[in-house]
């Protein structure tokens, strides 16, 4: 081209020689297209989570545990507080059976041509099927862990977002309260509250609350009263940083109210942090519950929990060690897989949090 044949005005100028270039072919143009499909936040996190073998393994274990505790009570024909009986008569020989052992009465019953469901984990000292007790114990533990985390999440989210968003004097007062609760030794306070609430709370028999039992309710109150502070601090910190973003300013300038901004703009942006810390809260709640049950402050008597089963197993430790092994293994398995899953979620959903 003649343009290029023009001699350079200055010897050092970057005048390009266009004849050295050629237009891109259609195929080459296509290479510039975005390679990956667009994904949502959740799908992207899940993809990364499913690449982590430990997290997948613990997810499978957890699903198996949940399937067991849901399905087992339908299959096993014994109740968790049912004292075993054969042909309508109390089976006094079914005390402390080893796993898969039948009592004399049951053996006779089977010899008559009837079938009898095996005692997979044996029986306890009160002639109750131990497998179903462990299953119900795991149910209680998971239930407490899950709901305690939800309660902590709701209270922490509410107060944390108010404190972070409103700021000023409200924030100052809330943060002082949080500071004090945070420095209270949690376990001692939990024990103290459980001792007191156990005595103070009474419910009408037959109501939903009464069927849960005072101990369970007091445990939820305790979790709600003490453990929200961590979540509250976390969400407040998140909000303080997100609040300064331009899109919040934009929303404000077109007249969006505080509630809408918190709901639509701020909370979705700290969702990953919230999910992760809730997930990590569950195993610690299960830990606390099993401690409380172990020292006799957990769920009320006929209802088993993994901690109270382990505590009860101490009596006959010498002769029936498997009674300790089963609930103990269940606690360890559940907490371990929840921990690993929580760690995996942290890595998958928020790389910033990785330690």
């Amino acid at each position: 081209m003649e343009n290029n044949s023009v001699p350079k005005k200055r010897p050092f100028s970057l005048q390009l020689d266009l004849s050295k270039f050629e237009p891109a072919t259609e195929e080459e143009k296509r290479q510039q297209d975005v390679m990956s499909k667009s994904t949502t936040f959740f799908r992207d996190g899940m993809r990364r989570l499913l690449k982590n073998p430990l997290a997948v393994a613990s997810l499978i274990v957890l699903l198996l545990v949940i399937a067991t505790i849901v399905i087992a009570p339908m299959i096993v024909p014994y109740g968790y507080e049912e004292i075993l009986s054969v042909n309508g008569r109390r089976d006094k020989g079914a005390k402390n059976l080893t796993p898969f052992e039948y009592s004399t009465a049951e053996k006779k019953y089977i010899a008559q041509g009837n079938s009898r469901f095996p005692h997979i984990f044996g029986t306890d000292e009160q002639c109750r099927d131990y497998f179903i007790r462990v299953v119900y114990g795991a149910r209680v533990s998971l239930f407490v862990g899950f709901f305690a985390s939800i309660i902590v999440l709701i209270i922490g989210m509410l107060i944390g977002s108010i404190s972070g968003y409103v700021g000023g004097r409200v924030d100052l007062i809330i943060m002082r309260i949080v500071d004090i609760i945070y420095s209270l030794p949690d376990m001692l306070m939990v024990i103290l509250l459980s001792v007191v609430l156990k005595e103070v709370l009474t419910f009408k028999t037959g109501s939903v609350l009464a069927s849960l039992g005072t101990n369970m309710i007091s445990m939820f109150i305790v979790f709600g009263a003490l453990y929200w502070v961590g979540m509250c601090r976390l969400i407040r910190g998140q909000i303080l940083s997100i609040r300064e973003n331009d899109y919040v300013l934009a929303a404000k300038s077109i007249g969006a109210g505080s509630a809408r901004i918190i709901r639509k703009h701020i909370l979705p942006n700290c969702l990953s942090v919230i999910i992760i810390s809730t997930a990590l809260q569950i195993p610690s709640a299960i830990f606390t519950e099993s401690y409380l049950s172990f020292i006799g402050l957990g769920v009320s008597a006929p209802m088993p929990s993994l901690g109270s089963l382990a505590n009860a197993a101490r009596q006959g430790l010498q002769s029936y060690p498997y009674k300790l092994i089963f609930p103990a293994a269940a606690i360890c398995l559940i907490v371990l897989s929840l921990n690993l899953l929580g760690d995996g979620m942290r890595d998958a959903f928020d790389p910033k949090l990785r330690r």
Partner: protein
Amino acid sequence: MGRYIVKRVLLAIVTILAICAITFFLMHAVPGGPFNREKALSQATIDALNARYNLDKPLFTQFIMYMKGLLRGDFGVSLKNGREISAIIGESFPISARLGLMAMLVALICGTVFGSLAALTRNKLPDRVIVFFSTLFTAVPSFVLATLLLLVFCIRLGWVPVWDANSTNYILPVISLSAYPMAYITRLSKTSMLDALGQDYVRTARAKGVSKTKLIFKHALRNSLIPVITYAGPQIAYIITGSMVVETIFTIGGMGGKFVSAINNRDYTLIMATTIFLASLMVVATLVCDLLYKVVDPRIQYD
């Protein structure tokens, strides 16, 4: 710095006061007075007892009197056996403190050693073994570990005699108490050691030919200990909590065991005194650790 210390000390004092108030008022919310026995007492006796222990006064006055007593080190008397609570604490606390300190030392030393070892052999066999066990032990509650240890080593193998009041064999309780903090410290010091090894000053030291031992111990390890110190303070809380069940399992006459039996006996004054004592101890320990942290790492901002 001065302002920070004052602020933290004030917060600690407020916390301790809050603990005393919460404990006192919660315990008095429990229905049934301390003199509710199986055998009914005559009204005159109850009145006399109430007057003797100031229970006829308004609740707030009682609280003030209780606090005054606390300042003099007077925790009142146990409801169940009438003994001075300060005497009970005086004889049981040293046992718990010794047990707790031993467990803490074991956890700190083994934790940092294992953590550093894992960081130095990253992705090799020792690292994998250490990570496996530290993950496992963060999922085992101390009461499970304690009971299993008791079962295996005392009952089945008979290597360690079952604990009695005069025994000085702390091996099993210390192991079961220190397992969880040890696992946690291992994970913590592994990450901070890896962090320290990646720092510029370590590269500089290596470039100028510092020997590997000196590099690890003088440059990397010292700096990796900082997060461990912050963790150690609140950890005392865990040790105390864990020691409640561990002491109960091994029937050690320490404070933890006393606390659990006080709960089971509904001995409210003893529960109150033990809670206040242990809680204040934890608050002070956390405070000391936080202040120490600032001294060790001058980079930390004081606000």
